[in-house]
């Protein structure tokens, strides 16, 4: 059970857990989630954003309960519940999940940079350098990964102010009338939104690395709230700024809003934004690599240094093979469905089963 116990010098402080989770949540999705949620819920989609966000709090609460019960990570929970063989086969699945997540995130980043900045960017070289960076981070241990999450959130924070420019040109009457969509439409919007929110599941893997996990709860929930706030604010600003008809054609609505930014020394602010996104995406990739390699280490007892390199190579192959938007979309859709079912089906199920098993054992 205590296989996952971690020395204190390798642990992170409780509030840092919030940065890790938020940095994993904020990714490519932020740049273009508005169009997808508006498809069903229209300008009422901001309600879906809040609603979907609130469900995460429940899921994360369950995740904490799961980890607390087994006093370890999800790998321990699976082994505890299903025994070594079945438990570890479920665990092996996470290696694939995080490898593909890593490749998908990298592919998305590459796609944006190629579309907006460098048409001739080679996927191989970009992927290789970026994954090298990821390996370098993971080699530093989880503290370094957490540090990247921290800086990946703090340094690009100034970008939030840039949306003030779009606010100036926004027309908030676009949002009216409120609640003219049916509940079903809102739920559909919420479903699409929940895919953008994904990533908080990493908590199940790095739980043993938190010093005083009990204290971290409040920080994590504040972190989740701030994610909800960012997404809601962006959604509201976007709906005010874009007429609905135009929004339907804007794949990267957030990026397009930056086009209005005019500063005395910088024009085309989106270039700066995309360059910064290279930093914002870094924690997601480093965390995915870390999670995948850590699971490998825990199950197969393989040196984590070797497994990181191997997983990074697999990611590189995937990225090189999917340079087109269509194939990337397919990948995105599959990982999204898997991610959604992991969060909303698997986690509650695991929680219930643990609850039952505990009761049975107690009796």
């Amino acid at each position, binding site marked *: 059970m205590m296989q996952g116990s971690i020395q204190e010098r390798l642990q992170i402080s409780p509030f840092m857990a919030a940065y890790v989770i938020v940095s994993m949540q904020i990714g490519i999705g932020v740049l273009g989630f508005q169009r997808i949620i508006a498809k069903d819920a229209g300008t009422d989609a901001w309600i879906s954003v809040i609603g979907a966000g609130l469900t995460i709090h429940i899921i994360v609460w369950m995740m904490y309960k799961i980890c607390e019960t087994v006093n370890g990570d999800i790998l321990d929970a699976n082994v505890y519940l299903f025994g070594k063989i079945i438990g570890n086969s479920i665990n092996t699945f996470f290696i694939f999940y995080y490898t593909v997540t890593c490749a998908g995130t990298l592919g998305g980043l590459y796609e944006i940079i190629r579309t907006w*900045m*460098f048409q001739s960017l080679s996927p191989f070289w970009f992927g290789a350098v970026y994954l090298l*960076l990821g390996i370098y981070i993971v*080699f530093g241990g989880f503290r370094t990964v957490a*540090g990247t999450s921290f*800086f990946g959130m703090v340094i690009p924070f100034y970008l939030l102010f840039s949306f003030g420019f779009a606010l100036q040109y926004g027309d908030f009457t676009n949002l009216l009338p409120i609640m003219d969509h049916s509940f079903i439409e809102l739920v559909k919007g919420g479903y699409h939104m929940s895919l953008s929110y994904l990533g908080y599941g990493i908590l199940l893997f790095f739980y043993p690395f938190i010093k005083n996990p009990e204290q971290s709860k409040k920080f994590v929930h504040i972190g989740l709230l701030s994610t909800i706030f960012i997404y809601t604010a962006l959604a509201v600003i976007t709906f005010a700024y874009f007429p609905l008809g135009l929004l339907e054609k804007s794949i990267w609505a957030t990026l397009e809003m930056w086009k209005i930014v005019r500063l005395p020394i910088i*024009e*085309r602010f989106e*270039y700066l934004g995309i360059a910064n996104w290279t*930093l914002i995406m870094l924690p997601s990739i480093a965390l995915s690599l870390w999670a995948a390699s850590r699971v490998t280490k825990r199950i197969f007892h393989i040196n984590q240094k070797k497994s990181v390199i191997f997983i990074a190579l697999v990611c590189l192959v995937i990225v090189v093979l999917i340079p087109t938007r269509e194939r990337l979309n397919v990948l995105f859709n599959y990982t999204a469905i898997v991610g959604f079912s992991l969060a909303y089906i698997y986690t509650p199920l695991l929680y219930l089963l643990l609850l039952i098993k505990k009761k049975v054992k107690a009796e």
Partner: protein
Amino acid sequence: MIKKNFPNGANMANLFKSVKRLLKRKFTLDEQKDHQSGPEKREHRKDQAEDWEKELTKSKDYQKSYYFNQKSGKKFTLTYLSTLVEEKVMDNNAVPPLLEGEFHHIDDVKKLLPLADVELSSSFKDIPEKLLKGSVMLTLEGDKVFAFISSPKQIVRSVSAPEIEFSVVGPKEAFVEPIDQNINMIRKRLPLKELIIEQFIVGKLSLTKVCVLYIEGVTNKEIINTVKQRISDLDKDEIADSSYFTQMISDNGNSPFPQLLDTERPDRVSSSLVEGKVVILVDGSPHALIGPTSLTEFFNSFEDYFLNWILATFIRLIRLFSVIFSIMVTPLYVAVVTYHYQMIPKDLLITLVTSRRVVPFPPILEVLFLEVTIELLREAGARLPTKVGQTIGIVGGIVLGTASVEAGLTSNVLLILIALAALASFTTPVYQMSNTIRILRFPFLIMAELWGLVGITIAFCFLLTHLLRLTSLGLPFMEPIFPLRLRDFKDALFRLPFKSQAKRPQYLRTDDPIRFSKKKANKKKDIDE
């Protein structure tokens, strides 16, 4: 160090000077002869004696003098290296009592020279070491034991003003080479029995004295042990300077970043000790090493503490800005001019295009050309004697700069940026760190040329990761930014007033976290009281 200070030494010296001259029979015997005449049974001992003498006799400063004691008539010899021994003190203060006094047995030396640092020994092994440390060996006829009288010659440089960490206000003394003098300067500032000075001998050939300083009851024991462990694990033949230590005992030897702070200011050392840090002093080096340290500390000048906290904070922020500017400005120029010219506002674009119109090179070559020129100037200025160096600066800076713009090799906008970047890099108060900043921009330039702004961001991420992974004596280098410790910001990027500095930095995990009582410092007065 005990200075040889005999009672009424000067008077005694005068009195005995004439007598001494009469009695002194100073002659150097042919060693071989001496040995041949020795008794057979002592041959083995003689052999050993010969061993240690064999090399030393080849040196010109080897001295062996023979004397006769007046009372006992016994012959005694003084052996020493004249360049290492204070001969005047010996002649004036040590030799007269030995000639005049009751000298029958070797133990009598201690009575005859009550104030001298005398050590008795019978081991031949000790002899070379003692002689080389400035002791005089005293042997008495018919006695197997010999005495060492310590009388090292102290060639002391006078304490001068700090050159690298110069400050307009505040103390003007800097460390010098002899370690004892440096310790003296620190002891004077911290008259504390808890200030521990532990000595190590490092270097197989140089036998350099290395001292580890800390305040017991303040400094974390784990940190002290780490330092001591690393020093005793060292294996090297020669230690020329404390900078050897920076490279050898730091956590990551392959990092361009120094992980121990070096300083030439005793005031900075003493205040670091009080903060709960460990200081390493190396004999023969005018620089002390302070650890553990963090990145922000390298951008703090000690002068910050002599200024009002508002001014000090402002200056620190200026430094921070200038460092970022210095690293980033030329890569940004390359990235924007090569790839993202759309980012430049129209009016600025006109200026830029006009200045670049005649330049035949791509931006990266233009930048590299100028950057290398600046580096050349810097290096030439550093290698040449001070006065010539200044001329080089003027010739290089003005003539080359103007000429290259006129010749159309570079744009004058870039020239301004490069000059500003060079200037900004000089604001780093710690010399080792300013060297690091010098080289950091080159990888950034290459990445900027490859992938523009994205490349710069990736290079920045590498730098960030590297810094995150660095530790100084096992403690995170990026502290207090990561791990975030808001309380330690009081003396990192900002310098808040002294009354808010009542606690020692958190990350040092000191045994005694409180520096002074905050209540007294924070006492506030009401109006008209």
